[in-house]
Every structure is written in C-alpha cells, then in structure tokens.
C-alpha cells in the first residue's frame, strides 16, 4: 500500500518547544554560566583566564585530574566491555536473560549513593566479605584483607562505576539486539566467525548508535559524579567532582569561580573524550548499511 508522505507541520513542531525550553534552556544556561563564572576574575568584573591559571596551578590539581580521569576511564571501559560481552552472549544464548534483565533493572533503580553504601558494607576491610574470608581462615583478619574501598588506587570507585554503569549500557543497547542482529550473528557464525570476530564485525557495529552515546554518558558520570568519589574515595587524591562541590558550597563566594573552572575542565574533558571516541569508531557509522532501529517490531 502506498502510504501518505507527511510533512511535519509547524503545529507539531511546537510540541518540541516545552522540552527544549526546560532541558536545553536550563542546561545550556548552566554551560554558559559555568563558562562566564570561570572566566571572570575573583572579586572583579574583568574577564580573563586568571581563575583557570590559579586552579590549574594549585598543588595537587593535576594529581586529582589524572586520578578522576583514570577512575572514569577504567570504570567506563569495564562497564562497556562487560555490557558488550554480556549482550553478545545473550544474543547468541538467550537463556536466563529475563531473570538477569530484571536484576539489571533493579540495579539501575538503586541510587548511586545507596550502591556505594552497599559496596562499603560488603568490601571494606571490616566488611562482610572480609568477615567471611577471615572466618574461613583465608586471610589474617582485617589486616590481611585487601583494601578495596577508600583505597588510593580508586579500586572502590572503579568497581562502583563498572558495576553501576554496566546495567545502564547493557539495557540501553538491548533494543538493538533483536531478531536482525541475532540473524546476522548466526550468519556470521556459519561463515566461520568466532566469538571475538562476531563481536568485532557484527555485534559492535549493530549496537554502535546506542553504545557510543551510552558510553559517553557513563564516562561523563564517572568524571563528574559526586557520590562515588565522596563515599568510596580517599583524601588523596580526591576526585575533581568532590572538590568542585566542596568549593561551590563554601561560604567564601569567590570559591564558586574556582568550582566553575573545575566544572569547565570536566566538561572539556568529556567533550574531548567524545570526539576521540567518535573518531575511533567512525568506520562503524559509515559501515552501517541498514538501520536496525525499527527491527523486530512487526515480523
């Protein structure tokens, strides 16, 4: 049947205005504010990069920066890799998928703060896991148990990010792992593709349109989320998000400029990382011949 081609009318476009106004308006205003506040000098109206120079020159700034970048990158990498491997497995071996999905949804609903509290209760040197291992005589009590949370290597934060963002990435990509992807994978297998090359050449390109934004979003949270660093971090180095929030809430209002400067640094980092990621994955975008977006809806 020939279907009427529709033009989107002006009236329909009006429907976009409220959401764009609320979300776009507030977040773009937030961006502008951050920029404006960070380039105005402390205590004067002059515009300049003085605040940036001060903040970037503070002792320990770069230690905090590299630490934040490292935990965000490792957390995101683990989460994405895990989501891809698990998603591919589910695509080829769908058993147990429903139960696991329910669990993942549950995890997604648990706020970051609570997840961090649970990790501490489980993994701290006097936490439940340590109690079990020392009961079983596997280590010599508190001192023998490895420091997994509030540790200087950020293991706790990385674990938190990996375990909390994996469900997010996986559930986001799930709608793209329907019948068509499954068929392509089966086809690939008959052509002799092993697990690794199936993932590399079929699965990843199929889920890329969602995987890449989801990865960026999870990286942005890893870098700019307050809760994991606050609950699972150490005093040295602290994540930039924790420092920024402390400065923003300081009674000394000039500290707000510094807080915004840190926010701008974080935003720039996310932007840079996104550009790098998009450049690295360009082949997937151009390679995609058929969109899988609407598959599996009406067989």
């Amino acid at each position: 049947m020939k279907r009427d081609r529709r033009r989107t009318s002006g009236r329909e476009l009006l429907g976009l205005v409220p959401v764009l106004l609320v979300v776009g308006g507030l977040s773009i205003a937030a961006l502008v504010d951050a920029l404006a506040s960070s380039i105005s000098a402390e205590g004067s109206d002059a515009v300049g990069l003085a605040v940036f120079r001060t903040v970037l020159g503070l002792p320990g700034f770069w230690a905090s920066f590299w630490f934040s970048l490292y935990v965000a990158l490792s957390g995101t990498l683990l989460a994405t890799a895990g989501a891809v491997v698990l998603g591919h497995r589910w695509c080829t071996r769908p058993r147990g998928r429903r139960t696991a999905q329910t669990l993942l949804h549950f995890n997604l609903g648990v706020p970051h703060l609570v997840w961090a509290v649970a990790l501490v209760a489980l993994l701290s040197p006097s936490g439940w896991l340590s109690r079990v291992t020392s009961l079983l005589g596997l280590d010599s009590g508190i001192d023998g148990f490895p420091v997994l949370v509030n540790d200087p290597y950020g293991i706790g934060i990385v674990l938190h990010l990996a375990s909390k963002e994996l469900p997010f990435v996986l559930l986001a990509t799930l709608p793209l792992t329907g019948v068509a992807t499954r068929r392509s994978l089966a086809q690939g297998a008959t052509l002799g593709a092993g697990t690794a090359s199936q993932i590399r050449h079929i699965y990843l390109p199929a889920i890329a349109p969602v995987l890449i934004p989801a990865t960026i979003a999870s990286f942005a949270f890893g870098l700019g989320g307050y809760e994991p660093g606050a609950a699972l971090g150490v005093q040295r180095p602290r994540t930039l998000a924790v420092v920024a929030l402390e400065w923003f809430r300081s009674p000394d209002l000039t500290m707000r400029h510094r807080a915004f400067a840190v926010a701008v640094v974080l935003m720039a980092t996310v932007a840079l990382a996104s550009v790098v990621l998009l450049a690295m994955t360009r082949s997937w975008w151009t390679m995609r011949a058929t969109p899988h977006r609407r598959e599996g809806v009406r067989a």
Partner: protein
Amino acid sequence: MQITRRTFATLALGAFLAACAESASSADRSAVSSGPVPSDWDAVLSEARGQTVNWYLWGGSESINRFVDDTYGPVLRDRYGITLNRVPIADTVDAVNQVLADDQANNPRGAVDLIWINGENFSTLRDAGLLLDGWARALPNASLVDWANTAVNRDFGVEVGDLESPWSSAQFQLVYDTARTNVDELPRSYAQLLDWACAHPGRFTYIAPGPGAFQGTRFVKGALFEISGDASQWQQFDQALWDRWAPELWEYLHGLSACAWRNGETYPKDEAELHRLFANGEVDFTITQAAVGASALIADGLVPTTAKAFVFDHNSIGDFNYVAIPGNASNKAAAMVLANLLLDPSMQAAQIVPANGFGLGYAIDPAQVTEPAARRALDEAAAALGSGAADPSEMAAALVGDAAAPYQDLVESGWRRELVGGL
C-alpha cells in the same frame, strides 16, 4: 463496582495531592513580624503564639534530631502554642547560604528563624550584618549563663556580643575500648600519642580536617596548642604566631602519619567513618565531643558497649554551641522563646542524660541554679552519666577554649596542603 473503584481512586489521589501541597508549602507558612523586644517578655510570648519556628540545624545525628523533636517540640506546642519545624541540613553552611540568598533576593520574610551556629559561619553572618542584635542577654534564662567566661563570650575567638545565645557545650575527647586497651597504657598527651601510635603501627587515625569535619580540625588544633606550649595565645588571631608554629605542627603530624592507619595515605572523612573503623577493630581510638563521652554512641549502637571516653591531661578543646536569629527571620518572637527554652534548667538537665541520646553538655552554669526543683533535676542528671563518660574532673582540668576563627581555615587548608598534598 466500576464507579466505586473510580471514586475511591479519585479520593485517594485527592488526599495525596493535599498531602503534597502541604509538604510543598510548609516551609513558607509563616506570618510577617518585626523584631520584638525581649525585655517585654510577655509581649514576646503573645506574639510568638501561633508562629512556626524554622530551626535550621545540622541533621547528621539522629539522636540529636530525636531529642530536639521529642523534648522541645511538645513543650513549645503545649506551653507556648508554637510549632517547631526542625530543618535538617548537611552542613551549617547551607543555612548561612539560605540567609545570604534571602538577603540577596531582598526577601524580608527569610526562611530561617533560628540557626545552630558556630565559629566561621557565625563570623560570616556577623560580618555581613545579617544577625539580629540585642536579644540574647535579655532572655529571662540568660541570667543562668556565665557570660563572664571567655569560653562563653567568645566563639572561636570572636566576640559573641548580644548576637548569639548559648545552647550546649562540647569538649574534645578520645574514646577507647576497655576490652581491648588497658587504661594505664592510654596516651595522655600528643607526645605520648605519637609514641603509642608508633608502638602500635596502623592502630590510630583521626578525622581529616575540613568542612563538616570540625572534630578533625580540633584534634589538629589541640596538637598545635601542646607544641606551642600555650593554648591561650591562640585566642587572638596573629599570622606571625601561626607562621612561627605551623612548620612544627606539620612535622609532628607527618611523624604521626608515618605510624598511622594505612600509613596516613588517607584519613576517615567524618565521625561516622571513624566510629565504624573503631567499632570493627580497625583502629583503637575514635573521637567524641559529648559530655557523656561514649555513652551516647553506645546507646546508638555505633560502638561496643565496652567503649569509654578519656582526655589528655591538657589542651582538650571545649566550646559552647550557640543559636542565632537572622535579621530577616520571619518568626523572631518564636525563635526567642525557643532560645530561652533551650536554657531552661529542666531542658539542660534532660540534654546531658545519656538515655535521652543528646549527649552534649550544659550551656548554663549549674552553680547559678538555686530553684530547688531545677537543682534536683540537674543533680539527678549528673548522677546518670553512664559508664562511657570520661572523668569529669579530668575533663575540667584539661579544658581549654578554641582558637580564633581565622585559624580554622589555616588549619584546614594547611593540613590538606601539607599532609595530603592535594586539593
């Protein structure tokens, strides 16, 4: 059937929306008032009747929260016709910011009626001229306060004037576990603490000084007092004095950190974390500021029942907690009635009893209380301090006032720079 179900759903939804509306507007339901004069106390009482007092206070201690709601709330309601709205905040800075924001917005009906406030936050609001003046010493119960004592009339070295009314007191103490540590082995000075820590590597730590972690700051200040040999000189701010002693302070703390929990690579960020480490046997001491020592912590299930507080022989910093009324408060009369009630001997007696869970000390000078019933209440309370409390005479002997406010930031930022070497 269909209709009844729908009617029921509609009713339930309506009731829920009403509850929502209530919760959304409860913060703003107060009458406009100008500043009453506390010398005409009857006028204050009649103006306060029917008001809601929005009391902003740190909400991190559930026992304090419960005490405030259960002890002051009913009396305010039944005796004075005042509704108590306790507004819990994560840090007093939030209340300060609220007052500043109301002022910037030229809002004459500010949200904050009374703040539990101290030190730096007090001087911020005081310097901005945003606090109500001329009321604290005119409260009826203010006669029980020892205003001549410098620990009372100076808040972190800042003149309290007539801007703040005391509420309670606190003193820095360490807590140990009698089941684990022998009382004769306890360190009794910072110097001995260093020896103890290095004899028991990894068994001591303290709270990282910083916003919301004033106990850690206080620990460091105590060290500064001992090293410099004279606590009283820190009552006035003197940059040169700080520059003279700071290097020795950092040197001491570096030495301590080499023997500390996890070699000082990190420190607990707040009281709760240190309590957890102590309770689970990761370290051997925790910190408290309560008059009842460890008793309140025991009652809350934070530490083992065998925990007990103790003080060093000298330089145990104590201070008073104050309440202040912002100049733009909407319910000033009710705020005054509450501030006066806080000083009532029966309330003061109630707050030190461990069973009540509040755990802070007197704001009044008990010696000034002569009325027999009140006298008896105070005596009974003193007798019930519990097994977790430190020896009161040792505490009194070691008590010193806190340093002037500007040192707070020097200690906190200096500690972060020197000990942590980071942001």
